């Protein structure tokens, strides 16, 4: 019974941790969308900024990966 309770908590916790991935998805979308908006206003300057775009996406994405990691730890390590 107690083991089942712990498993229940694990699954609920892993599911809750995945909400964080949605937040990171919004962040990545925001970065990419704003880049596109800026790039369409000044296409000649866009080419030099793709590195910045990917760095921004990587930073926004890292936090989503952290919550994914928490979910994985709950499922397989705890």
């Amino acid at each position, binding site marked *: 019974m107690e083991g089942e309770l712990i498993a229940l908590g694990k699954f609920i916790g892993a599911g809750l941790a995945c909400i964080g991935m949605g937040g990171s998805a919004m962040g990545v979308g925001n970065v990419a969308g704003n880049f596109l908006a800026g790039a369409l206003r000044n296409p000649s300057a866009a080419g030099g900024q793709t590195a910045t775009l990917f760095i921004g996406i990587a930073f926004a*994405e890292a936090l989503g990966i952290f919550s994914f990691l928490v979910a994985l730890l709950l499922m397989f390590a705890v």
Partner: protein
Amino acid sequence: MATEEHSEGLAFHPMDQFIVKPLFGGDTVGVLTVTNATLWMAISVLAIIALFVLGTRGRAVIPSRTQSVAELAYGFVHKMVEDVAGHDAVKFFPYIFTLFTFIVFSNFLGLLPKAFTPTSHIAVTAVMAVGVFLTVTIVGFVKHGVHFLGLFWVSSAPLPLRPVLALIEVISYFVRPVSHSIRLAGNMMAGHAVIKVFAAFAPLVLISGVGIAVTPLSILAITAIYALEILVAFIQAYVFTILTCVYLKDALHPAH
């Protein structure tokens, strides 16, 4: 996701592909055990050596296909190092290029069916990320001495704010190797697990009698996710490399 990971119906567990197994019998994995991880890392290294040795053997003015690929990769990373980290970072180019080619080849070879992806393991990526972290920190202190700590002291901010910012900067500096390694491993692991979940979903739908019409949809989904994974495999290698360049730039020019 329509299937849950621990449901009884799944033909195989989506995380089974990440198990490190000894190649030549036995169950225990020691320090010197040859495992499937060793095999696939060796295959990537051999493929890299083959590409660059064969590619640069001819040194033709009109390059062959192999030489074009080798030159393209070299020029791509060289330009990235120069643009992002500055001209004086070019002496670190061999290190960064090694990281880039190893990650690209591991990621792409890991996409072959039945293959093992070394970069999906945090142990592998953490070694690379900690290596980058130590290199960057040592280079910063060797080049600038105590002035390197100016990276944490934001002199453009108002004075009362600076200790708070310094704390945040120090934390973000030490989180770097963590996020650097987990980003790559997490992306690889998540992508491969998604492919496997869809792959297990296809026969499940067929057996459960939902209808033969749904199975092609599932296979289409695998194909689409696979195409996405090819993109992700390259982008993550690119991101890892470009972040290395950014960290290197911080060490060489710590002015805030």
